[in-house]
């Protein structure tokens, strides 16, 4: 039935192999790019077909395992190379391959003329392959393969400009931080596998099997341990506190990478994973609260940093971290659908934003290059007034910004508002709900502010680019603009598949398609929640009120941005000079990187150095060599017993005789 599913990851893999092995020989960028894009597009086609097939099934049967071959089996442990097709994975397939295709196309234009063009496409294909494994793997281990695979590709692509030290550092940082998360993921897997097998004789890591047996798990206890471990994995991959610092640094990679990996797909893997494991997460209130609170804090915290950054991509990066925080709020409050919904809409508008910023940077770079200026092409302080040079880019960028700001009617509004509402009204966390909601709302305000600050600084106002360069600014070619248009369109309308019931009722009973669609995936979690959590009834008016508040917040944010960066641009400077320490702290990302260096990295290095020079060489080897020295010294001493004098020798003999005889006489 789904016999062809294996084709989905296969195409990108083939693309990777062709480009990776032969790319250097092919040389022709068009061919390389086409191969790359085509590979992903083929996957997209198959994904669409799969999707159509899937929704053709009755909703209860929409979960299909397709085994390819047995990967490894040892004792009770068994893992297959097998795929799981269900609504969630199918949705992710569409997002990944769809956006992936667009970004591949975009990259053909964007990466034009770069050294190692083939390498870029090979990596990108490899990434798509890994991501597809991640979302379709039917067991934890295969998911982990994808999980690490995307981390690897992220590492490779961040370090794409490997001759820059900062790029290499950023790549390594990303990989290591991800590894910390992976550690959690592994431990979670082990505990889950062991606990279920040990206590119920069910040795499995397959999602459907686990879900089927979800009721065997207790509430809290071991489940908390398991889910917290998994959540640690999620924080690494999805850049949540405390493992978020790699994501802003990851902007060292080419912009399409930021769009695809660090905005649309990879970073959402953590959210996806929690969605996958929702039946387990819901059984641990502690973990759910942790997820929600961490998400909320991250959302707010990253947003504060985003307000003070001047690098266009960094702003977007912090925005991504912040938006991922929203998704985690959604997951943490049991609004799994809402979380996934935000994942999807965010993929649309954030990809669009990144690609748009890429177009801007591309253009800026070209212009600056023309006048041989070494100004930073990504610094917003060098931009301004670009809308007249790049109207299409501006339009798409604006649409996406409005979407992320949460202006009603755009996709971001629906998903974000749903999350905030659920955060407020969910039955899980009691009074903590207010905190979560409060942080979420504050983050929404900041989001609207810094995103519009970005738009205003970049596209509006006067052009601050170095004199002479402005005439070289121009709109990007169609290959770049086309994906922007598609994504902007999606950012505009993507929200309508998940209209909240409240609004849907108003507009004549439009159903929440997404919720229906994902229903079987989260059925177990929802049932459990319904059974175990006390549902407080909230009036419609409260919901309306909060929705209105969100809208107000969005507009207030925009208004502040307009005030500060359009109407009276001198205020930020005044503000900066009024609170220099605060600004410096925010500008320097609250010194979190430095803190990590101080607390973890440097001690580790010192410890390593101490263990090497101090312990390994001095103590361990010292003992070994010490024994040798003692033996040698002993030999050096006893050789002097050999005096060369006969009477000494005779004496020694007599002594021997006397001792022997004496011993036996007096024994």
């Amino acid at each position, binding site marked *: 039935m789904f016999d062809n599913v294996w084709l989905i990851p296969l195409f990108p893999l083939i693309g990777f192999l062709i480009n990776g092995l032969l790319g250097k020989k092919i040389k022709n960028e068009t061919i390389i790019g086409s191969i790359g894009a085509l590979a992903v597009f083929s996957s997209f086609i198959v994904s669409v077909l799969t999707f159509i097939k899937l929704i053709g099934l009755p909703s209860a049967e929409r979960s299909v395992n397709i085994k390819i071959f047995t990967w490894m089996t040892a004792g009770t442990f068994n893992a297959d190379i097998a795929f799981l097709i269900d609504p969630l994975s199918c949705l992710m397939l569409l997002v990944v391959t769809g956006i992936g295709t667009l970004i591949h196309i975009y990259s053909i234009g964007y990466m034009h003329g770069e050294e190692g063009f083939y390498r870029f496409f090979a990596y990108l294909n490899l990434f798509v392959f890994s991501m597809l494994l991640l979302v379709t793997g039917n067991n934890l281990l295969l998911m982990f393969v994808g999980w690490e695979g995307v981390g690897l590709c992220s590492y490779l692509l961040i370090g794409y400009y490997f001759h820059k030290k900062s790029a290499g550092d950023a790549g390594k940082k990303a990989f290591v931080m991800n590894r910390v998360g992976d550690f959690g993921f592994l431990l979670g897997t082990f505990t889950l596998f062991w606990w279920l097998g040990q206590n119920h004789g069910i040795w499995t890591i397959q999602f459907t099997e686990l879900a089927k047996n979800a009721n065997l798990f207790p509430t809290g206890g071991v489940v908390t341990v398991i889910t917290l471990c998994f959540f640690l994995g999620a924080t690494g991959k999805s850049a949540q506190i405390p493992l978020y610092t790699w994501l802003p640094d990851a902007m060292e990679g080419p912009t399409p990478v930021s769009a695809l990996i660090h905005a649309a797909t990879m970073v959402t893997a953590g959210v996806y994973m929690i969605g996958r494991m929702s039946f387990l997460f819901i059984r641990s209130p502690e973990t759910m609260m942790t997820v929600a609170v961490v998400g909320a804090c991250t959302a707010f915290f990253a947003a504060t940093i985003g307000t003070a950054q001047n690098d266009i991509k960094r702003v977007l990066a912090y925005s991504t971290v912040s938006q991922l925080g929203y998704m985690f709020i959604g997951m943490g409050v049991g609004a799994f659908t809402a979380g996934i919904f935000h994942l999807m809409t965010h993929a649309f508008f954030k990809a669009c934003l990144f690609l748009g910023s890429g177009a801007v940077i591309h253009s800026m770079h070209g212009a600056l290059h023309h006048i041989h200026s070494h100004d930073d092409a990504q610094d917003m302080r060098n931009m301004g007034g670009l809308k007249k040079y790049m109207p299409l880019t501006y339009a798409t960028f604006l649409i996406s910004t409005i979407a992320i700001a949460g202006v009603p009617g755009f996709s971001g509004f629906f998903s974000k508002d749903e999350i905030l509402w659920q955060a407020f009204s969910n039955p899980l966390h009691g009074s903590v709900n207010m905190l979560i909601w409060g942080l979420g709302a504050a983050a929404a305000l900041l989001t609207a502010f810094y995103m519009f600050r970005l738009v205003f600084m970049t596209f509006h106002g006067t052009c601050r680019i170095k004199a002479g360069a402005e005439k070289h600014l121009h709109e990007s070619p169609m290959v770049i603009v086309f994906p922007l248009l598609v994504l902007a369109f999606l950012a505009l309308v993507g929200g309508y598949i998940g209209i909240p019931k409240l609004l849907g009722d108003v507009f004549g009973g439009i159903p929440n398609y997404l919720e229906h669609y994902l229903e079987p995936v989260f059925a177990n979690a929802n049932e459990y929640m319904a059974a175990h959590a006390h549902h407080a009834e909230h009036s419609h008016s409260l919901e309306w009120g909060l929705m209105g508040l969100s809208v107000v917040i969005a507009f207030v944010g925009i208004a502040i941005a307009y005030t500060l960066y359009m109407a009276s641009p001198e205020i930020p400077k005044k503000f900066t000079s009024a609170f220099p320490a605060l600004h410096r702290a925010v500008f320097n990302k609250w010194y979190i990187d430095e803190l990590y260096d101080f607390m973890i990295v440097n001690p580790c290095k010192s410890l390593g150095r101490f263990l090497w020079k101090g312990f390994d060489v001095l103590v361990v080897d010292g003992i070994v060599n010490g024994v040798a020295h003692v033996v*040698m010294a002993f*030999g050096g001493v006893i050789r002097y017993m*050999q005096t060369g004098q006969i009477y000494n020798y*005779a004496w020694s*003999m007599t002594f021997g005789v006397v001792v022997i005889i004496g011993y036996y006489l007096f024994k």
Partner: protein
Amino acid sequence: MDINVAQLFQTINLNVIMPEVILSVLGMALLLVNVFVPSKSKGYLAWLSLIGIIGAGFVAVTGWGTTVSSFNDSVVQDSFSIFFKMIFLLAAGLAVLISDQYMSREDCNHGELYPIILFTTVGMMLMAAATDLMTIFLGLELMSISLYVLAGFNRDSIKSNEAGMKYFLLGAFSTGFLLYGMALIYGVTGTTRIAKIAGLVTQVGGAGNTMLLIGMFLTLTGFLFKIAAAPFHMWTPDVYEGAPTPMTAFMSAGPKAAGFAAMLRLLLVVFPAMKAEWSDLLWILAVLTMTVGNFTALRQDNIKRMLAYSSIAHAGYCLVGFASGTATGMSGILFYMLSYTFMNIGAFAVIVLIGKKGEPNGTVMDYAGLGHKRPLLALAMTVFMFSLAGMPPTAGFIGKFYLFSGAVQAGYIWLAIIGVLNSAASVYYYLRVIVFMYFKPGEEEFDWFNVSAPVALALVVSAAGSLIPGIIPSLLLQFAQQAVKLI
């Protein structure tokens, strides 16, 4: 009380001592030949001796498996003595082969050397075959006096003089203790025939008879001196260093084996009842001997001296097997002494070749670069060193395996452990030779020395003897087992 001559001659079976007779007669003949043949080169004497030695070997082997005594039970021909005779003959043969080149170089190429070597061998053979304290004593003295001469043979060399003098004085001193011991044994039992003594030991009170016990130990010290066990070992380094190298080689292999032969016979045949006592003593002496030998050898630069200390250590290994008192350990001694003869004389053969007149270049450092300039010679030396160190697949390993197995079998686990640890320490100084041969460049222009045919033959035989029994030791081990079983 008249002597019945016919009856007397019935007790004499010359076949039993035929190898000794052959060598003695040959020795005397060679003395004459040496006088009457006016040849400057004495190489022909070496070949003649070798023929005699081989002949004696063939004669000796024929008696394998039988036990025949002669001369009123004062000497016996059994597998045990034959095995040891083979070791002595081998040592003598190899020593004879490597002597000519050395002696010619050192300008002391006296033809008397070969007869004396042969007489020494006769002495050793008598020690192994004797079943009477008096015969043992005379065999021992024949061997010792010849060895004093051999040690001081290079009379123009101060070192050789000194070696001879030290060996002589200390040897004679130890003889005093040996004789006192024998006197006590005689006094308690009234006979010198060991078979008779053996029968009387329990009758006179066994270990409870202090005089007998002390007599045994005093006798033992005499043999311990010969095998260079601590604390009776101190002559060894000086004598080995000073004596002419081929004689050192001979001395390190033959008399040690002879000492063990006599000790084995004495303790196993006469004093099995006192095993608890002597086994304890040998336990301690084994540890002491191995440790002193190995640890001191670690700090030696002079290769002869280093090998002297190593030979002390090897005596210690053998004592490990001895202390165990098991057939495994005892047969290990036999096997080990045989392989030790091969590997140690082999090593000394290399030293003979490398040395210059007066041996100014006797240190390990002088072997630098040998591996590249004379690869085959260095390879042979490597085999000897690894065999001495007890690395598989050499004979040295199998020998040590049996010795330590004996200790383990008897429950002396700690002894075995101390033994192997010592053996590990010893690896350092054997490896040091290899380090210099292969890993260090030779400093000066290398002198091309010739390798004379007899030395080459000795090297080949030694190398084969160090290696082959390591790979297929079965036959030799079985011989050793039989030999031990029969006493």
